[in-house]
């Protein structure tokens, strides 16, 4: 009967409490609509979130869910998944929750490669606490806590994830639901930790930061949609491309001597190339490079929870049925009459 579930079945009875126009709504919609396609019984799905506007997410999903504490969702999800490998775990977090207070748990989850899907709602601001800058805010951001502009050099979330040996690294945006939907599916399909950064608009405290990529007009020229084994093409008229000469990527215009064959063919499995792509990151694309969306990198590493299960199985076969009395007795005993 699971097959017959619809996205509505995944909406809880709680009213959604985000600001009107918040990017979180469209993400929620896509997540709910992708759920039936997973063919996983609703009761086997758990949404785990930290604290933040985005982290209210679990309340709106008619699955099991945990709204936890700020920054700790990766660790809670890790404990849940290790002890219950049968569950499908979705971790929802924000740029502050994941990369400020939760940075350590995130990089450790990524290196361990626990099988879960991390959706990072990046709005480059602290929403719930009403507008302080976050570790992804652009330098010079004037926010409640930085009246003269922020001085912090922001994280490049995807470079950080790759540096932490993430096995699946992708980017999407709230305003391109179709692509977002595909990315959610890809994240679900990947075994191990999937790290999906989603550009999300905070209409109240950081409205329009991502317009360059989300605006239908500017998007074609500024967003580069990656597809495995396809050349990297973008531009209104799909007349621009990215070429690699040696280590140096460059933007070229198709035609006049440059053909699709000359372009950089995307290879999801090449870690170094993925890293180069993650560095297409200039504010406003000032360096001329488009911002990549899609799967930058995927690799097959054994999932941590599977290894843990395997080790326990091995221990059980080695020791046979557990004998509690033998354990309590130990090696040396004596008897007092």
């Amino acid at each position, binding site marked *: 009967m699971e097959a017959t579930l619809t996205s509505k079945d995944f909406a809880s009875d709680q009213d959604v409490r985000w600001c009107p126009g918040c990017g979180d709504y469209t993400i929620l919609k896509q997540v709910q609509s992708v759920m039936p396609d997973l063919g996983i019984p609703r009761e086997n799905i758990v949404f785990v979130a930290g604290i933040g506007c985005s982290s209210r997410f679990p309340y709106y999903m008619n699955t099991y869910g945990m709204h936890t504490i700020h920054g700790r969702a990766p660790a809670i999800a890790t404990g849940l998944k290790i002890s219950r490998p049968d569950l499908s775990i979705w971790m929802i977090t924000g740029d502050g929750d994941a990369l400020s207070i939760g940075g350590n748990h995130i990089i450790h989850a990524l290196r361990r490669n626990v099988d879960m899907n991390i959706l990072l709602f990046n709005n480059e601001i602290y929403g719930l606490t009403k507008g302080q800058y976050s570790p992804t805010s652009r330098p010079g951001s004037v926010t409640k806590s930085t009246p003269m502009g922020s001085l912090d050099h922001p994280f490049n979330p995807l470079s950080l994830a790759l540096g932490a040996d993430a096995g699946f690294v992708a980017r999407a945006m709230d305003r391109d639901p179709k692509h977002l939907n595909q990315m959610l599916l890809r994240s679900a399909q990947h075994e191990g930790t999937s790290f999906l950064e989603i550009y999300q608009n905070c209409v109240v405290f950081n409205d329009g930061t991502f317009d360059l990529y989300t605006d239908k007009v500017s998007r074609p020229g500024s967003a580069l949609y990656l597809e495995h084994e396809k050349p990297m093409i973008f531009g209104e008229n799909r007349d621009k491309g990215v070429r690699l000469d040696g280590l140096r990527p460059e933007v070229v215009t198709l035609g006049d001597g440059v053909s699709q064959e000359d372009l950089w063919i995307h290879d999801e499995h090449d870690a170094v190339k993925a890293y180069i792509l993650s560095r297409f990151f200039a504010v406003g694309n000032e360096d001329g490079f488009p911002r990549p969306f899609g799967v930058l990198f995927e690799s097959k590493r054994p999932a941590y929870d599977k290894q843990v299960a395997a080790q326990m199985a091995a221990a059980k076969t*080695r020791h046979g049925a557990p004998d509690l009395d033998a354990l309590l007795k130990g090696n040396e005993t004596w008897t*007092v*009459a």
Partner: protein
Amino acid sequence: MSHPQITRETATIRFAGDSGDGMQLTGSQFTNTTALLGNDLSTFPDFPAEIRAPAGTVAGVSGFQIQFGSRAIHSPGDSCDVLVVMNAAALKANIKHLRTGGIIIANLDGFGKKDLSLARYKAEADPLLEVQTTGYTVVPVDVTKLTRASLVDSGLTVKDIDRCKNMFVLGIVYWLYSRSMDPTIDFLSKKFAKKPDLANANIKALKDGYTYGNATQLFSERYMLEPARIESGTYRNITGNEATVLAITAAGQTSKLPVFLGSYPITPASDILHGLSKMKHFGVTTFQAEDEIAAVTSAIGAAYGGSLALTTSSGPGIALKTEAITLAMMYELPLVIINVQRAGPSTGMPTKTEQADLLQAVYGRAGESPIVVLAAASPADCFDVTYQACQIALEHMIPVMMLSDGYIANGAEPWRFPNSDTLPPIHVSFAKPRKEDDEPFMPYSRNEAFVRPWAIPGTKGLEHRIGGLEKEHGTGNISYDSDNHQIMTTMRENKRNAVADRLPLLQMEEGEPTGDLLVIGWGGTLGSIKQAVMETRALGHKVSQIHLRQLAPFPKNLGEILGGFKNILVPEINSGQLVRLLRDQYHVPAKGFNRVRGIPFTVEELKNAFINEVN
């Protein structure tokens, strides 16, 4: 020649040497042998603070003390009758532990120029002579030379031969206290099964030491102790941390739940992680997290998933867990937090003991956050209390903090271990699946003990969300309603307090329910307090004792017992914590007896304090 054999009721021996001299092994061998002979005993290992402080220095001295006897033994002894010192530093560090007139067995080869200077004695000093003149009996032995001689044909390197020194000494002490060498010989053969030459060398050193003691004029007499008249049954030796590991494993079996430990190493709690990591075949998963916060939160995740979930740490680590413990309290999920207390505050003295985390355990969280707090009273008691902590957490859906301390965690005592089928059952029933047309599921509905249902993922129809925001009574939906907040706050408190209903009433530990003085202890001080109370009573004083394992909620009859006494003294290895809880909750003028020295109470200081109170 033969030596007169004197019978003693109790004896205390302290082995001291350089970290490299294997004193802990020597001590534990003497302990096992003595246990097998049916004496009651109590031990106290005294590790150096550093992993391996420079050889020969005072900082590098490692000690092991054991008190044993033909009567019940409650503490490792204030001071020892025999002090074994392998070098000058060991003497310097430990002479204060030797009773006046006691015997020092000294390895002469550890008192060379270099040894003296490393131990910071003056070059011209002769410390052994000095102590002799101050009324101790010094028995000098060329342990190194003698061991080398005894093993000259062993074909071992000098380095390996010198590693047998401790067995030679152990041989001497075995002779002195008329112990059999067989258990140690067994042990050595097993331990070095793969290296027979090492096994033989150690065994020969042991035997030659024994013979040496017998053959020489070193001692004017030797001693023997009758088996103790203690409860009959089969015993084993156990440390507090070992007992804790067994209790957790056992609780997993009786509750039929997978066990999940999320932990991060810290002295003196790490051995619980080490021990449980060997229990995989019992369905125990250990997760060494990136920090204490991940340790406790991973356990919370596992608890939501239906595991018996635990986390272990000590002072600094427990502090880091408090935010998450409050979340577990708010979730109303089962969680066991084990705090093996060490001397603080801050990094403090990690290898020393203290019981100064009680108020933190009871009050140390933001908001009204009532949890259950238990404390173990001795190494073996760690089993019962830890097991009970698991039972309460699971049956009451509440975090339980179990307090141990560095002294009982590393100290050992004989344990009449239980038979698995005598363990109290642990009743866990997950909420049952729900059909479309059933009543809506109420994750925050409660039973008569205020306990909510445990509904784990994978259960059809019970999909629900939990969080740290205040929840509506019953539904568990987010609620900012004022009255609801009052209701839920009261519910959480009632639920914690209701745990007392299911727990046994408190019994007198010593003495009558009325008298001139009631002594109240908690945690690892039981042994020394009990011994001191018994000795004070032997002097004819009306002193009684109770010992608390339940710190929150208190046993239901505690108030009643307090009513029987005008004078109440509360000895604690802190600046006064339990005494505050008692004064607050029972309005009694309880006094504190407090020492914060990183070491256990001596029976002597307690006895004096008690006598003071009754005079």
